């Protein structure tokens, strides 16, 4: 599974890379616009990661099987990395186009909050003692966080306001010839999440098994 998805990912990275290089330069923004081919997939990936965490959390509370807890953990660790990349790549583009590193517009704020949610989740895991209790608490917090996200979006809807962040989910807001590279890079991002979650799961399974053999508490 791991090798197979790794191969697919490698192929997609090459394909995306080529498409991005080939893609036309944006008339107004110039080459800096190309960072969006990284930023947007990272954003999608960070939400995908949280989805995995929420899914794992829900399944764990329902079935109480350790493997769902491992899934939730993998989702969080992968998601936080992509969320960090999103928060780093966005400002690079923003400085190049708006002239500012950061604005407090709703979408940015929500992404920042997602990042804090991830961190809180991971810190909760390291500060709780006992792996069963850790799994349980983390799962509950994962679900709470998952509840918070739609509420955050509801808040964005209501407080429309100073939305500087482009709403490029609309058709036609992309320039000519950019559609395919974007699609490809977003898909690549999602496959990357898949690959990394599987890799992290493998790693976690190994760790749990070796801890069992050594007879100790596995530190999550």
């Amino acid at each position, binding site marked *: 599974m791991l090798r197979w998805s790794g191969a697919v990912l490698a192929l997609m990275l090459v394909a995306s890379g080529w498409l991005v290089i080939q893609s036309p330069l944006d008339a107004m923004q110039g080459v800096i616009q190309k960072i969006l081919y990284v930023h947007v997939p990272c954003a999608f990936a960070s939400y995908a990661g949280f989805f995995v965490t929420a899914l794992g959390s829900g399944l764990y509370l329902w079935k109480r099987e350790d493997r769902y807890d491992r899934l939730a953990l993998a989702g969080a660790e992968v998601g936080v990395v992509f969320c960090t990349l999103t928060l780093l790549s966005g400002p690079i583009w923003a400085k190049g186009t708006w002239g500012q590193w950061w604005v407090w517009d709703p979408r940015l704020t929500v992404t920042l909050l997602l990042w804090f949610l991830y961190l809180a989740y991971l810190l909760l895991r390291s500060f709780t*003692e006992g792996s069963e209790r850790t799994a349980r608490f983390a799962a509950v917090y994962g679900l709470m*966080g998952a509840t918070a996200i739609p509420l*955050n979006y509801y808040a964005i809807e209501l*407080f429309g306001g100073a939305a500087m962040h482009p709403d490029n989910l609309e058709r036609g807001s992309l320039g000519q010839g950019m559609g395919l590279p974007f699609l490809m890079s977003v898909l690549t991002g999602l496959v990357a999440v898949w690959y990394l979650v599987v890799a992290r799961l493998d790693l976690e399974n190994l760790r749990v098994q070796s801890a069992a053999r050594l007879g100790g508490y596995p530190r999550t």
Partner: protein
Amino acid sequence: MRVAAAIFWKDLLIEWRSRDRIVAMLLFSLLTVMVFHFSLPGGATAQTQAMAPGLLWIAYVFSALFGLGRSFSLELENDALSGLALAPTDRGWILLGKVAANLVILGVAQAVTALVFALVFDLSLLPVAPALAGIVVLGSLGLCTVGTFFSAIAVQTRFREVMLPLLLLPVLWPLLSAAVRATTALLAGEPVPSEAIQLLIVSDATYLIVSFLSFDFILDD
């Protein structure tokens, strides 16, 4: 349910006997107001008055963090928490009883804080007092629900004082921003945006239901 009522009165009785939470919260609020006053230039100007709603809610959140942590740490003595878990009832009622008690205790601290704010920032709160109280209650309901819930988690981890704000603040953002917006409009004499009230009500209802249903998982061992 009667178990919730029993816990509500018990928590209030304990608080009345020791008064440690309310005193700490009041002191903390007052200190916060003093800090705001000193860090803002020129005292009660139009500018600072515009910032007052946000500052007020910051003071509320900080003093809530203080008081909510204690809500479950008092159950740790003599393992009283197990005593609660033994009760033959839906465990969500335990949470609701505590949320109600925390609301009352926080409410007292909030009322005093609002008074001090009005004095320091030269605000006239009396004409809008009922509406303000309504907004504060709506906001605090969500704050206490999630705060009490996470306090139950935090108290069973290491670094519990740090854990509570860490868990709470990312989840509370929509609620707090709605509360601040509503308060800002109210104090500026503008009509309160109904979207803000909507968001408060939806958040409160969602968090109450989710917390009630999930509380069992927190007490299970």
